């Protein structure tokens, strides 16, 4: 199998070939491991490689195929895991100094489900320190480069996962999304990233302190919408180990793929995103809406009266919930956090209890407003990011030039990287990011499609129709 072949692969295309034993799992695994050896030194997408176990797992999966056993569409598919997902016998750092030597003796439920589905785990991917940022510039494990332009960030906090999928160093990845940490890097790396409904995917085995109890979600990265649907189908569902996981039945998401979108109504929230969007990103998003209309989707403006309070609710909720989880480390060795993260936790400790409680009440109001909006539209469409990936240098300086103006990355209205994504963390609604075009500098941008709770199928239906019409997923970063 040549390197070029690997770049052409998707899970949906590969699964029947594996099932028919036209491709061996061992051969596939070796091809991806070779690719990682070639490209990871420049990208720093993987933090820990699991070569031995991956090869052993692939041999075992080949034996099963020879015996006529096929576990499903993920049988033999190469995957990566964000490094805040507990993985038995494998170092799991959460991108932190504190957990540099932690080797869990158990698998997170999502890891267990992937293994049961036959996925081959190639390694653990780099992430922002404790998942607390959207650059994946990590002071302990290095910066993950964007495969489209190595001088730019991959986004975050699951930057390694998105970069690995974009560079075809795996075909699927699992990340976590507390404020956009799946969707933001997916957008900046030009791949598909899904944040499912709160409770849709078990969070058991996620490292405590890498996301708020009530705002964090686990979700897949993939090359295409169909692949993302296949992965979500394998990892979703109730888990007795996670009391906040939902018992809502998991539908066959593939049934949604390929359905017509003619006549569906898409809502757009005016005014919220625009102040932190470049004129180029606005044009690209407008073109994506035009494409949706060409497919027969009806677009309409919707009102979320308290939408501007979302950054405050997110701050009072996830920052405080994360600080609670950080207590032990703060007491034991506070300077083991980077200064910025230690300050953030201290800042959270000063947020009064009445602010947290009030934020939860406003949050309920906002959830109701979204629910009312969904009485008028089927999906909500929004940009994922306000501009293409910043350079690493811009991020280190804390400022970026947008339309000739110097803009701070941290804003009162929310972090520039997460403003567009946090509405769906606060509300727990399912949202997917997929590529909706490229900036003049060659970097991708993303569009979100969100739906009512547990309507991921609808998200996939609209996303797939757009993806096939637009064709952005056919572009690949130059990897030579």
């Amino acid at each position, binding site marked *: 199998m040549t390197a070029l072949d690997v770049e052409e692969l998707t899970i949906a295309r590969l699964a029947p070939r594996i099932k028919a034993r036209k491709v061996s799992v061992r051969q596939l695994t070796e091809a991806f491991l070779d690719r990682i050896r070639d490209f990871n030194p420049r990208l720093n997408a993987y933090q820990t490689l699991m070569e031995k176990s991956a090869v052993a797992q692939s041999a075992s999966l080949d034996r099963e195929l020879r015996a006529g056993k096929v576990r499903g569409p993920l049988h033999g598919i190469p995957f990566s895991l964000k490094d805040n997902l507990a993985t038995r016998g494998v170092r799991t750092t959460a991108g932190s100094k504190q957990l540099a030597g932690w080797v869990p003796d158990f698998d997170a439920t999502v890891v267990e489900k992937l293994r049961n589905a036959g996925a081959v785990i190639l390694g653990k991917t780099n992430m922002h320190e404790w998942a607390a940022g959207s650059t994946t510039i990590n002071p302990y494990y290095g910066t993950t480069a964007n495969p489209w332009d190595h001088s730019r960030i991959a986004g975050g906090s699951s930057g390694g996962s998105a970069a690995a999928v974009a560079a075809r160093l795996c075909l699927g990845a699992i990340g976590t999304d507390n404020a956009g940490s799946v969707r933001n890097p997916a957008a900046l790396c030009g791949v598909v990233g899904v944040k499912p409904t709160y409770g849709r995917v078990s969070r058991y085995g996620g490292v405590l302190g890498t996301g708020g109890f009530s705002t964090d979600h686990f979700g897949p990265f993939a090359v295409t919408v169909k692949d993302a649907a296949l992965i979500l189908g394998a990892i979703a569902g109730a888990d007795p180990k996670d009391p906040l996981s*939902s018992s809502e039945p998991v539908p066959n998401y593939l049934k949604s793929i390929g359905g017509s979108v003619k006549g569906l109504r898409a809502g757009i929230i005016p005014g919220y995103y625009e102040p932190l969007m470049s004129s180029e990103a606005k044009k690209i998003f407008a073109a994506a809406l035009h494409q949706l209309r060409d497919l027969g989707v009806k677009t309409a403006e919707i009102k979320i009266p308290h939408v*501007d309070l979302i950054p405050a*609710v997110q701050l009072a909720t996830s920052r405080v919930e994360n600080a609670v989880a950080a207590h032990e480390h*703060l007491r034991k060795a*506070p300077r083991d956090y980077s200064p910025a993260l230690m*300050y953030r936790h201290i800042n959270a400790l000063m947020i009064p209890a009445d602010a947290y409680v009030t*934020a939860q009440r*406003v949050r*309920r109001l906002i959830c*109701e407003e979204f629910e009312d909006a969904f009485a008028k539209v089927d999906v909500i469409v929004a940009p994922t990011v306000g501009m293409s990936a910043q350079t690493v240098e811009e991020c280190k300086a804390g400022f970026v030039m947008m339309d000739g103006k110097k803009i701070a990355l941290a804003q009162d209205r929310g972090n520039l990287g997460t403003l567009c994504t946090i509405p769906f963390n606060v509300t727990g609604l399912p949202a997917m990011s997929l590529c909706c075009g490229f900036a003049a500098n060659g970097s991708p941008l993303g569009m979100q499609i969100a739906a009512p709770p547990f309507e991921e199928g609808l998200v996939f239906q609209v996303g797939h129709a757009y993806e096939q019409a637009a064709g952005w997923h056919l572009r690949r970063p130059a990897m030579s």
Partner: protein
Amino acid sequence: MDQLVRRINAQYKLDLSEEEIQQLARQAIATEEILRPLYEVDLAQLRPILGIVNNPYRRRRIRGAK
């Protein structure tokens, strides 16, 4: 605010420098400003969330309920 920072500094044995204390105090004031609008929302008829629920939409609001 700096008194609050000093209290946390002592409680957690953070060993913050005076410069850090002042910086954190300024950050806390900025955070307070961001959170202030939350208190201006009329929530009189809205019940608080009494626990984290895995599907708040299934427990539709009971607004105005006595």
